[in-house]
């Protein structure tokens, strides 16, 4: 059963190395053990998604975890690019940021983000969040999974 179920592939867009490591760690600790890539900024994330240099062989992720504050191109801008592209807009995007500001939340949902989550301070909360993410988006909204099952 486990082998037939495809692995959830997640792209993490995060400028902070420590945060990226933390997210990666928590995701790997989940039962799904998804495959994880990391982009350091918005431009890199878009290059990865559009399979441009230096990622010509990049795979299409099943979920994008996007930080709001990014160097070069910020999270909202990346989100806008994804949601306005016909090929990419079906990929679920979850905002994962330290900002709990209502303004940021509204702006993100206005740009058609699929979910908005605040990075929890407590580690066990972080673990639970990673598990929930994998559970929900892995089972419901995995185009690859649908393809295989179909």
């Amino acid at each position, binding site marked *: 059963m486990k082998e037939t179920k495809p692995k959830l592939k997640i792209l993490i867009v995060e*400028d*902070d190395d*420590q*945060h990226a*490591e*933390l997210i990666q*760690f*928590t995701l790997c*600790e989940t039962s799904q053990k998804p495959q994880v890539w990391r982009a*350091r*900024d918005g431009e890199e994330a878009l290059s990865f998604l559009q399979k441009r240099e230096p990622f010509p062989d990049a795979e299409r992720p099943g979920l994008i975890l996007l930080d709001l*504050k990014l*160097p070069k191109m910020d999270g909202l801008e990346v989100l806008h690019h994804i949601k306005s592209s016909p090929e990419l807009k079906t990929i679920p995007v979850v905002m994962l940021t*330290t*900002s709990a*500001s209502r303004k940021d939340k509204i702006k993100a949902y206005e740009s058609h983000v699929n979910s908005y989550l605040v*990075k*929890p*301070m*407590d*580690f*066990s909360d*972080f*673990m639970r969040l990673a598990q929930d993410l994998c559970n929900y988006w892995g089972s419901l909204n995995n185009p690859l999974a649908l393809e295989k099952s179909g």
Partner: protein
Amino acid sequence: MSDDQQPTHRRPMSYLRSIRARIMLGFLTLIAGICLMSAVSYSGFGTVTKEFETFRQLNQRATSVLELDRRVSEVQRYVSIFSYTGHDSVADRTFAVVGSIEEQLVAIRSLLKNPQDVERVNRLDGHLKTYRDTFSQAYEQRKIRKVLEEQDYPRVRRQVEEALQNYRNASGRRDRLGERAYVEISELEENLFSYMLQLDAYPLEQSLEKLKVLQRDLAESSRPQATFLYQALGGMHRLAIRIMQATRSFLYLTGVVMAGEALEFSHVSTSLRESILAEMNPVIALIQTNTRQTQTFNLVFSLMCILFGLVFSMAVGLSIARPIQAVAGTLLKLSRGEKTEIPGVERSDEIGMMAQAAGVFAKRNEETEQLLKRAQTLTRELDLSKKELERSNTEMEQFVYTVSHDLKSPVVTSMGFIGMMKVFAEQGKLEDALNKLPTLEKANQRMSELINDLLDLSRVGRADTEHEFLNMDEILENVQLHATGLLEKYPADLTISKNLPNIRGNETRVAQVFDNLMSNALKYTSLTPSPTIKIGGFQDENGTRFFVKDNGPGIPKRHHDRVFGLFQRLDVSIEGTGIGLAIVKKVMKTHNGSVWIESEGDGGGCTFWLQFPPYGDKADAPPA
């Protein structure tokens, strides 16, 4: 101030030249004109009234004279009635009327002044006297005739009757003479009465002749009866003659003398009346002339008064209205807030007072305008302050938001890594757990750095308000000294110009600015081969400028403003809190200066420019 407060008391108002006085004068002149007109009219009417009184008196005299004439004709009528009837009452009435005429003559005489007229009245009086005397005689004659007629004649007639009766008895009925006597006596009697009524003398004289013939015939008879008849007839003849005489004298008196007197009286009275009328004519003419003169004079005088009143009232009215209009116009202009010359201030009447008051108002207007301007300026300043406050509020919000976000980040890291370490420890991977310790330490260190830098930023412009004269050469020497550690980590070719222009400012903060800029330059040129940093400065009329120039990757134009924001970092791989440039910007602001970047960002290096205000603006002169 007291001079300005009492401008109206400086020139005392002349009562005689005041508008009130002028209006009063106008009305007084009007009343005087009306009085004069009334007086002229009154005197004119007085003259006419006097003339009219004269006319009335003359008219009364003329009427009296006419009345005389009427009375005289009345008397004449009475006289003729008397002459036929012989009644005493008529004679009495005649005398009474004559008496009243005499009285009237006396009254008329007293009224007359003209000697000719008085003479005429005297003549009238004379004629009247003659008339009355004549009437007295006529009255006597009439009385005599009456006696003859009523007493003598019946007696004589009876004697003749008797004698004739005797004669005829004696001589028989057939006696011709007796018959003739009878006829002729009857005829005589008839003619006598006829004469008394008609004064026709001829038939009576004929009868008397016939009677004489009869007498003669009787005389030839010798009979006693004939003699007796003869005597009786003789007596009758004599009586008839006497009656005739009495009638003649009476009729002569009344018909000739009295009528002549009456005629004469009437003639004189007519001439008197004419004289009076002649006297009246000039009076009437005078009245007419006077009336016409009064009328003309009144008309001319009234016209003159109207003309004068018109001219005078127009002059007074204009002399009042013109300056009032001018002042009213000025007040209207003042009320619209226009600035204008105020006419009539030099006048000494009410207009002058009004003009002076208007001057005070104009001054108040100006003061009010200035106050308004001041209020507007204050409002504008208040608006600016409000905007500044709003901006500062927004900045504050932004600051809190940014700070909370960036401070949370290391906490998330710390907590996360501690959790990870715990997991590793549970799994027995102690090595892995220990490997996370440096990251954990770094995160905490970063948090501490952030807090320190934020405190620093918050202190800028608050704790250090002292500005002093700064020797920039000394300051940059210290900055270089302070950066020795960093220079060892990021070696670079650092050139600092000498004899830099001096400025005024806070030493610590200015040093911090250069420190931050130099650190940035050193950090960002670390990847560039042969990094070069140049620091210099110069002075011009706009103030003092410094620059920090490097040959690093540079900053793209679109990020020029962003990099001065809090926690804005171009490259997260390069260490730093993202607060340094925010501090630079704030320090420059507190020094009334500015900071900007000159760079294209394509590896062509980057120049930070600092502009300080010129000496004198915010700085004291440098010490000698």
